[in-house]
């Protein structure tokens, strides 16, 4: 702001010019106004006139110039000019204050626009600190952000030689700690005399800090410092820094949330890719679990509820012409369940016995040895070409024979207790009969109104083909993996 001078007061465009001219004409046309160097500004001094006096025109203790002329007129002119200069000075000070506020409004608006455009904590910190530096006098500054994982303060932006002033502006600053502890900004206008700075090496004279608060949480702080010995921060400076801090905090919080969302999306995408790969592997494994079975008509349907299922089935011929079929369900979902299914199918492929009780007992020991968490239910049947069958069940849904539930002996699921035995039942599959093995996804299908498919409907349902059984359950409301295997003697063998 340019200082008030007599020249500026007497300028034609000045609001005071007309008043001064009228006054000078009225009091005495011979009054002359000169500046502090004696340069005439209004009228011409006449040397040697007796009775002329030189009256100083003062503003706040400093002389702006003189009114020269007859004593009474010169004193009147000097008095009015001093008064007008004082009013002009007050007006200019007020205008300067208003212009400063205008600047603040616009810089804060600019900061808001900048912050809205960045989704990176460091960029937000840089913008906020840059704007703070424009609005508040400082030789040094820093923004520290609390790391979400460790809770430690980490430098995010700085200017001046912040590294040299790390004791006061860095993560270990005692002022930073107290500002965060109280969640309130602070002014320290004589750092050297503050007890918290005892023993710290610093050249900063004054310091101002504001917490970065998002909601009820501190996300960091912003600090400015000055090494000038005449620097004193004011409450107005702190309000301004708090305003910047509030905007920056919200933007940093958003940036952090955005980063977390991106990370989560990445993890989900990676998990989805893994699931897809597991699904492909599982489909291949299940396809290979169905070997050619001469003498038998075998149909299977496998409908996982998600990318990978926890159900499995295995069908293999034995050297004596009979077949072994296993349908099961591992507890749990997703990749863990898929891995267990893969392991079970591998164990079944390596199994040398064709006896259902032995197969389940062997599988139980494999699962126990693996230390797998969870359990697995399974039903295993061996059918000879004559139709004689032997069946053992480890906690699985009982099979259905021509629409009737086959009673099996109760036993624990696999993988819970070592060295379990699984007693078997025997029967005969007549040429017209069909044995249906299925998973609980069929009877636990749930309609939109919450109704379960239930056991009551199974006798009639199991008279249908494997595909019809699975489709019916799926339409009713699939909630879990659905597996259906139907076994009957081949027509050629029946002849």
């Amino acid at each position, binding site marked *: 702001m340019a200082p008030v001078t007599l020249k500026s007061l007497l300028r034609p465009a000045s609001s005071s010019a007309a008043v001064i001219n009228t006054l000078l004409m009225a009091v005495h046309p011979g009054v002359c106004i000169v500046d502090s160097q004696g340069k005439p500004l209004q009228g011409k001094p006449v040397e040697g006139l007796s009775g002329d006096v030189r009256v100083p025109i003062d503003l706040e203790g400093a002389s702006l110039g003189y009114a020269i002329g007859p004593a009474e007129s010169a004193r009147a002119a000097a008095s009015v000019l001093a008064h007008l200069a004082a009013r002009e000075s007050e007006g200019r000070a007020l205008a*300067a204050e208003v212009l400063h506020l*205008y*600047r603040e409004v616009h810089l804060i608006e600019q900061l808001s626009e900048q912050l809205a455009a960045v989704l990176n904590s460091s960029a937000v910190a840089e913008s906020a600190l840059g704007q703070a530096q424009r609005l508040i006098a400082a030789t040094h500054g820093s923004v520290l952000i609390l790391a979400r994982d460790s809770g430690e303060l980490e430098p995010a932006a700085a200017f001046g030689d912040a590294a040299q002033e790390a004791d006061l502006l860095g993560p270990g600053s005692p002022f930073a700690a107290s500002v965060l502890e109280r969640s309130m900004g602070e002014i320290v206008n004589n750092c050297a005399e503050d007890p918290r700075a005892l023993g710290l090496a610093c050249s900063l004279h004054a310091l101002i800090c504001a917490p970065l608060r998002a909601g009820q949480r501190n996300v960091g702080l912003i600090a400015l410092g000055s090494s000038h010995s005449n620097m004193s921060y004011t409450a107005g400076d702190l309000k301004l820094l708090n305003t910047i801090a509030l905007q920056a905090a919200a933007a940093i919080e958003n940036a952090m949330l955005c980063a977390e969302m991106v990370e989560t999306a990445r993890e989900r995408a990676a998990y989805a890719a893994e699931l897809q790969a597991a699904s492909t592997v599982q489909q291949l494994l299940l396809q290979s679990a169905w070997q050619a079975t001469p003498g038998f008509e075998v149909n299977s349907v496998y409908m996982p509820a998600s990318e990978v299922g926890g159900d499995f089935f295995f069908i293999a011929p034995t050297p004596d012409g009979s077949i072994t079929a296993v349908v099961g369900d591992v507890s749990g979902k997703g990749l863990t369940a898929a891995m267990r299914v893969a392991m079970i199918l591998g164990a079944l492929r390596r199994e040398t016995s064709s006896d259902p009780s032995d197969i389940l007992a062997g599988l139980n020991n494999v699962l126990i040895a693996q230390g797998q968490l969870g359990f697995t239910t399974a039903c295993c049947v061996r059918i000879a070409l004559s139709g004689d069958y032997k069946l053992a069940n480890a906690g699985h849904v009982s099979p259905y024979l021509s629409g009737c539930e086959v009673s099996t002996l109760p036993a624990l699921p696999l993988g819970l207790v070592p060295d379990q035995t699984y007693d078997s039942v025997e029967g005969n599959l007549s040429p017209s009969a069909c044995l249906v093995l299925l998973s609980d996804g069929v009877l636990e299908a749930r309609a939109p109104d919450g109704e379960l498919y239930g056991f009551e409907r199974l006798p009639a349902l199991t008279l249908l083909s494997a595909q019809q059984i699975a489709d019916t359950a799926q339409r009713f409301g699939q909630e879990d993996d659905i597996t259906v295997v139907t076994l009957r003697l081949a027509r050629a063998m029946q002849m």
Partner: protein
Amino acid sequence: MKPMKILIVDDEAHLRTLIQQTLEELEDDGVEILTATNGEEALETIRAEEPNLVFLDVMMPKKNGFDVCHAVKNELGMSHIHIILLTAKGQEFDRQRGHEVGADLYMTKPFDPDALIAKARSVLGLPAPGA
């Protein structure tokens, strides 16, 4: 060489003072700052002084800023005079109107002092201080 001139037109004295005080650093570069308090006075000053740049308020007695701008750009043959409408009216309709009457720029109050002085320097071809 003809001195460069800026005319500030606003019927509110405190706003004239604020703009004047913002631009007073240009006086060191020999720029003369003139003022007018209404539209008619503005047109008289523009005819007489041919300022290089006019900061023109919109809502004024006697003749509003849109009319003054239209007259300068289309009737007085002084389209070379750079006119910046400086107004509290911020509606798109008003911006459009300012464009139609030939204003070179439309700035809103409260104005950004730094943008105002930068624009004045740019129009007058004056370097930024310290440049």
